[in-house]
């Protein structure tokens, strides 16, 4: 039951869900949720390949870096969101289309 | 899962007999079934004991606070009021479960469960003794940190879902406090991990010894400071006084669980008391030698050798001693926690954050560096070992 196919399938569904969330939502925070899903999908893929394909731990390392990057990204991203909200009183993604205040 | 309670029990003859009998009766290898059953039983035991300890915690808290304030405390129900907590539990269960209007019902119901799950999940890796440990994960302490952070989510969600401004403020305070203090606590844990050379609880404890000179708290000056950093952070993580801002009754009525009644409130309280026990246990495991008994009595080898006892029996005696050591130390720390609560005044929010970010975190990082340098410079010898080597060697060159 625990097989490469199962893992790839799960990560595939996670990825598609993430894409959906990213594009369908107009709320910046929701888009960030989608990004988390996508990143997890890819990290899961790496871990699965490590287990089922090549056996060395490079995939784990990569997944680890993905997690680190995701944490940093969400921290900075949410900081930007909060700042954006302070400036524009909105977190609608389309309000962020101009380059200046 | 290198060693668990199952692997310990499987050494005994009875286990082998039952295993053989069951395999024969069922027609397949019953070892995983037995493991499952034993896990279930032990988990039940632990949950029961912990629920009792959590309940007894409330009783202890009342009694000790009364003692500190020169009162008598609960004394009506049972001898010395010992059954008070049972009475409280019964009261909680029987109370009406009120949900505020406009509350987010889904989250409102989920929050206390989440807290409790987070806490109970950590119990799996708490090392009661070298045999009586539910699962000695090789990422044990790391897993514990991760699971404990679920409590923060629970607190936050509880505060949010109540649709009350007191609750909301309490929840936000609680969550921010928990994730802030997780940083010095984790860094201190890492410095101890550095000393021990492993993440699993058994490694951490195995690197220490029964005597005080072998405890990590006395290993080097940095670890000594680290213990206090960890202890303070742990207090804050469990929302205990003087860091009980999320439930500050004088400001926020009762914080994030203002709107909770009945058993849901009970779950929050239970989670808090068990978490205190867990962090005390972790402090003991990391700094105070864990379940180690002086003179290696814990392995039981001495009993079988000197008294000629059966090896399993002597091991069992050793396990009991270890359990005793662990619980003695943990409960002593538990007492300190309660003592602190009734001694120190509560901090302000800004003081809380100042303490965390300006003092504890830099100190923790400094300790981490210090431990690393110590390991590097003295090849990981403890200060006691260095003194012994220096005095024994008589200044001999090496």
């Amino acid at each position, binding site marked *: 039951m625990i097989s490469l196919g199962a893992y790839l399938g799960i990560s595939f569904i996670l990825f598609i869900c993430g*894409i959906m969330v*990213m*594009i369908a939502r107009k709320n910046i925070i929701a888009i960030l949720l989608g990004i988390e899903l996508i990143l997890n999908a890819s990290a899961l893929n790496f871990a699965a390949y490590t287990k089922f394909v090549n056996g060395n731990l490079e995939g784990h390392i990569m997944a680890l870096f993905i997690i680190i990057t995701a944490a940093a990204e969400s921290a900075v991203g949410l900081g930007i969101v909060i700042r954006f909200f302070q400036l524009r009183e909105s977190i609608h*993604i*389309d309000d*962020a*289309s*101009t*380059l200046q205040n | 899962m290198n060693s668990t309670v199952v692997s310990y029990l499987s050494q005994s003859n009875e286990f082998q007999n039952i295993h053989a009998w069951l395999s024969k009766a069922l027609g397949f290898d019953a070892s995983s079934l037995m493991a499952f059953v034993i896990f279930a039983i032990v988990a039940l035991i632990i949950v029961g004991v912990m629920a009792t300890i959590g309940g007894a915690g409330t009783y202890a808290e009342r009694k000790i606070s009364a003692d500190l304030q020169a009162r008598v405390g609960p004394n009506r129900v049972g001898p010395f009021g010992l059954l008070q907590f049972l009475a409280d539990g019964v009261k909680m269960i029987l109370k009406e479960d009120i949900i505020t209007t406009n509350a987010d019902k889904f989250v409102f119901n989920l929050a206390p469960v989440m807290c409790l799950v987070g806490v109970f999940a950590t119990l799996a890796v708490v090392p009661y003794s070298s045999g009586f440990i539910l699962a000695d994960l090789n990422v044990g302490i790391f897993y514990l940190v991760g699971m404990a952070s679920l409590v923060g989510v629970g607190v936050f969600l509880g505060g949010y879902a109540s649709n009350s401004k007191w609750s909301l403020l309490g929840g936000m305070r609680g969550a921010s406090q928990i994730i802030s203090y997780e940083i010095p606590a984790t860094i201190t844990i890492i410095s101890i991990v550095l000393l021990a050379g492993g993440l699993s609880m058994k490694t951490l404890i195995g690197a220490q010894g029964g005597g005080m000179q072998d405890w990590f708290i006395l290993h080097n000056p940095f670890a000594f400071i680290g213990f206090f950093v960890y202890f303070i952070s742990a207090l804050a993580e469990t929302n205990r006084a003087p860091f009980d801002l999320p439930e500050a009754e004088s400001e926020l009525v009762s914080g994030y669980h203002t709107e909770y009644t009945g058993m849901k409130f009970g779950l929050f309280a239970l989670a808090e008391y068990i978490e205190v026990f867990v962090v005390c246990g972790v402090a003991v495991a990391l700094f105070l030698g864990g379940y180690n008994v002086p003179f290696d009595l814990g392995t039981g080898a001495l009993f079988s050798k000197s008294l000629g006892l059966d090896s399993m029996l002597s091991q069992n005696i050793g396990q009991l001693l270890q359990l005793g050591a662990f619980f003695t130390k943990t409960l002593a720390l538990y007492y300190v926690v309660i003592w602190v609560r009734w001694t120190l005044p509560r901090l302000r929010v800004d003081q809380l954050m100042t303490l965390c970010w300006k003092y504890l975190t830099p100190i923790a990082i400094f300790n981490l560096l210090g431990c690393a340098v110590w390991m590097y410079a003295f090849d990981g010898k403890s200060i006691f070992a260095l003194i012994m080597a220096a005095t024994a060697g008589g200044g001999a060159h090496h």
Partner: protein
Amino acid sequence: MDYTISTVAPIVLLPFFAFVINVFLAKRVPLAAVAISTLAIFGSFICAFRIFLDFQNVYAVGYHIHKVFTWFDLSAGEHLFKVNMGIYIDNMTAVMLLMVTAVATLIHVFSTWYMHDDERFARFFVYMSLFTSAMLGLVLSDNLLSMFIFWELMGFCSYSLIGFYYEKEGAGNASMKAFMTTRVGDVFFLLGILICWMIVGSTTFVDIYAAIGAGKFAGSFNVFGIALPIATVAAFSVFMGTMGKSAQFPIHVWLPDAMFGPTPCSALIHAATMVAAGVYLSLRMFPLMEAGHLLTFIAYIGAITAFGAATIALIQTDIKAVLAYSTISQLGYMVIGIGVGSYNASFMHLITHAVFKACLFLSAGSVIHSIHCQEMPQMGGLRKKLPYTFFAMLLCCFAIAGVPFFSGFVSKDRILGDALVLALENPSYWGVAILGFGGALLTAFYMFRMLFLTFFGEPRDHHIYDHAHEEHIGWNSNVPLLILSVFTLGLFYSGSFTGQGEINLFGSKNEWFSTLIHKPEASHLEHFAHYEHEDFGATDTRDKVELPKAQYDENHGMDEHHAHWVHQIHHLGAILSILIAFSGIFMAYLMYIKKSVNPGWWAETFAGWRRALQNKYYFDDLYINKIIQKGLLPFNDMLAKFDSQYYDKYVVDGTAVLNRWAFNVARWFDNNIIDSGMVDGTGASVRAVNLILRTIQSGKIQLYFIVLIVVLGSYILTLRF
């Protein structure tokens, strides 16, 4: 008599620790600092006295203590190179240790009285402690290198103490002169050490002796393509060290100026110990001097110094200057002693001179302290005011003048007697003998001139006389003088009348000096190769009983007939010296007490000589005005000017000017052709393209994302794997 390091090391370490403590203590608790210094040197004295007693009781010739430790070790691979340090105590060291510690103790005690009004009272003792430890370290050294280290440390202390009154303009000059002049000798000394080190492989005395015995110094030394016998070069270099430190002609000029320092420091450093260290070095390296055939040269240097300094001393009016020149002169006698091979007498003169000259300086200090004046023409008649000082100084003057039964007679007469013997054997030494006896005459004269001018007659300056303090006996003011003056008696050093052993007045037991001190004979140097030494921490376990007791030998190892002849010459010399001493005293009496001979007449008659003497034979003028002011400094200025004004300005900066010219041409080409033509044109075209591309960006992120996915998809889906 088991010598561990803990019985020897305190001799050096007590004053050294006193120094270290006093560095921090001097400013805050001056009196404690003084007490610590004085007690420390007294402690050293006790240790040294114990060693001396042991050695005197053993009376064994070959007995020595030699302890060695490795200072640093450069051995790497097969190459072995270790630098050892150690202590070496033989009979000579033991005597020297006793002298240094005893004199230093008394001078420390005297200083507590002499210096106590000074604002830098404690600091003086800081330097004195450092100096004493350095001197004792030098005496205990077993090798030339550590000797050199302490040698230079003493130089530093001397520098600091001469410059002690640093507000005075002259102090700076004098201290610098002292340091630099001795440094000239030191540089040669270092060269000598290097030569020995390279040839012997170690600088330890016994190793050097053994190497000389084994003939290792036979090669030649090439410098500027000239080949010189290596033993001569080494001996000369080492002897240059002696010349610098012991103020021998021609680099004696620093010692008179060194009198700028406080008088106790002059007594200790510039009379008793440091200047004598030079002679001590030459005595230690006597086999080398012998091997280098340098003895004649040394004898003449000593003779010229002894006589020349004595002549200059004749006309000095400053009481300390007289003593300074007499010190140079007496050091000259010691060097004569080395030169004529009179090893024992030379060393004895070193010891006796240290005692009576220290006493003389302390007496002079006592006089200066009580009248605040150093000029003898302003003194006179002080006998009544300063009776104890007068008594001490009188005894010392007898000693230095060579009056029988005083120590100076014993030691100096033996040197002169040996010089006479040598002159009779080898005519080239006649000059040494004549200059020696002449110097002795002058010595007796100028010392008593000083005594008479100071203490006798009527007070010449009544203001000074009336303000002079009355002298009272005091433990730290004149008791040290009196103790020292007692030891100017000859019987402490020799049992016989002349010190040569014939007219034995006090028994041969009192001939301990001659018994103890023996010249390392050239024929016996090989046995130094078998001198054993032990580790620094080890205890000396040799059984003393096995060592042969040295016997006093009246004939000094010579055969009967020769010894008889030598004794006769010695008698002659003794009679001659007694006559000379008394005639010198008598002349002084005539001139300054009786006033029947007018010194002024002599001065007018020999005006040219007088001028030369007043200018100290023009040595200072030659060195400072001619060589340094006219030669070295202008040369330096020229060199510096060449460096900064010509070489730097034209050669170095000229290159830069050339470069700049080339750079200007390149810049024109770059600005006008490359930059404005080619580069800016590209920029303009890019700007045009920009205008078109700008409109596509809308700012909607999700749109970008969809476009991204679609484009990526259409690309990937068309690919074939």
